[in-house]
């Protein structure tokens, strides 16, 4: 099985979010970048297929040279090859088009992307990629088994889960639950050394048309101070929730 894992390069979850250039650009100053957590669950599942069933695992990112350390980290975790599409990621549609080209060129059986990236939270790349490829698609995937050409997956739905079957080629939107958190891997020294020798291919973009543009960013208003309520006066809380906040 040939697996492609899409890797988004995102600010670490503890990052403070700031903007520059008149609030039009994300301020990367002092920000640590990581593999998007949803993608990491997908990458870990791909490693399981590689080790238990025999599969090759390529990783791909659409972005400038600054994303290469993130791809190297995916190689250190155990991916075989990395591909970087040399263009900034502008919006989900553009990214999906670039990924689709890589997916087509590589004839992958299984394509794993994260349900959403934790920076722009678009939640669109996996679905768009599947639709462009005319491949089957399972979103919010929390379990995946592949036997020959057939996949069995479980996806999370509001208030429960749903089991599905679909044939390959298949695109999934991965998320927490797909593998146990304790199975996520931290690259070890050997992995890091090997990653240096693994190929990181840079390919040029095919279509940079985007469907949406960010005009500017804004930060939420600073919050007013918390109203502290005496634990012996819970009636006051109920009163405030009813009359002031009007939520009960």
């Amino acid at each position: 099985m040939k697996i492609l894992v899409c890797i988004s390069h995102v600010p670490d979850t503890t990052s403070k979010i700031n903007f520059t250039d008149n609030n039009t650009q994300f301020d990367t100053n002092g920000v640590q970048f990581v593999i998007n957590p949803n993608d990491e669950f997908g990458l870990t599942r791909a490693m399981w297929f590689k080790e238990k069933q025999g599969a090759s695992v390529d990783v791909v990112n659409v972005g400038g040279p600054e994303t290469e350390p993130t791809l190297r980290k995916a190689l250190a975790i155990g991916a075989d090859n990395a591909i970087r599409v040399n263009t900034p990621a502008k919006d989900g549609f553009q990214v999906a088009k670039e990924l689709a080209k890589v997916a087509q060129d590589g004839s992958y059986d299984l394509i794993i992307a994260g349900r959403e990236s934790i920076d722009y939270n678009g939640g669109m790349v996996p679905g768009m990629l599947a639709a462009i490829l005319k491949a089957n698609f399972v979103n919010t995937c929390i379990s995946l088994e592949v036997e020959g050409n057939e996949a069995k997956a479980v996806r999370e739905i509001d208030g429960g889960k749903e089991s599905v079957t679909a044939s390959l080629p298949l695109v999934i939107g991965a998320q927490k639950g797909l593998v146990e958190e304790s199975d996520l891997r931290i690259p070890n020294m050997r992995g890091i050394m090997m990653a240096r020798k693994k190929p990181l291919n840079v390919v040029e973009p095919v279509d940079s048309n985007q469907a949406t543009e960010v005009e500017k960013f804004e930060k939420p208003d600073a919050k007013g101070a918390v109203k502290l309520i005496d634990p012996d006066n819970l009636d006051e809380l109920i009163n405030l929730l009813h009359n002031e906040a009007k939520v009960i």
Partner: protein
Amino acid sequence: MSVLVYTESEEGKFKKAALEVASYAKEVAGMMGTTVTAVTFNAEDTADLGKHGVDKVLKVSNDKLNNFNAEAYADALTQAAEKEGAKVIILSQSANSKYLAPLLAVHLNAGYASNVMALPESTDPFTVKRTAFTNKAFSFTKFTTDVKIIGLSKNAFGLKENQGDAAVEDFNPELSSEDFSVNVTNVDKARDKVTIADAEIVVSGGRGMKGPENWGMLEELADTLGAATACSKPVSDMGWRPHSEHVGQTGKPVAANLYIAVGISGAIQHLAGVSASKTKVVINNDPEAPFFKAADYGIVGDAFEIVPKLNEKLKEFKAKNA
């Protein structure tokens, strides 16, 4: 040229999110000088849609569509959009809507903006305000495509009644066998429980609850409030609660009207996922817990004493205000 909405129903009944999408669409249609058309799947009584601003209903009746199916629903919505010449399509942000919206976007070569917070800033150019960086910021996003798809965040707009009768038209989209190539083999859904996605009130517990055996009091509180239960990440990692209840940056986003956090410290990753909630109440025995900085109302004290007392008081309040 109407604004098209996908109105989700369950067992024939519209979800509140569907009526919210309709209410919002009415306003957008007003800004654009056009009308609202809703597409329904196997829903009989469409009167509620008329009451929330829908002018016309395209009613799909097809047993094959009893179970949600992203591909088939996207295909049907594509045909509806083409038939109506819709330039703006609006969906909720339920798990199912989030599943089908990107497919629809490719079919229609449309831009898609998810997590939209408010009415468009302008319709020419078409610009919307959406959350980004898991609620740590907003982004003003401009569409560059002819057709635009909007995913409206829950509780961002609310319901708005617009007395009216929607005209109903039967609609039979052509579906292909490829639309049914992902087959549902089993659905496992808690029927009587409020889900985080639908809840207006969420009662959430953290590591401060000490163990799964102590969740009874949170469930009782949730019961009294008609709320869903949720938890912080370590709680689901330790298996005290199911993964599906984990909220935060790497879990579920919560945009409830009221979020009650019990024994949760308020780490940045947790806050990011819940900050879109309107009112936040924090119960924590550590006055230095960072969650107090993000909360509207706080109680410093032991959850094990406060929660049962609060539940009793709320029951009394409910009885009096019923």
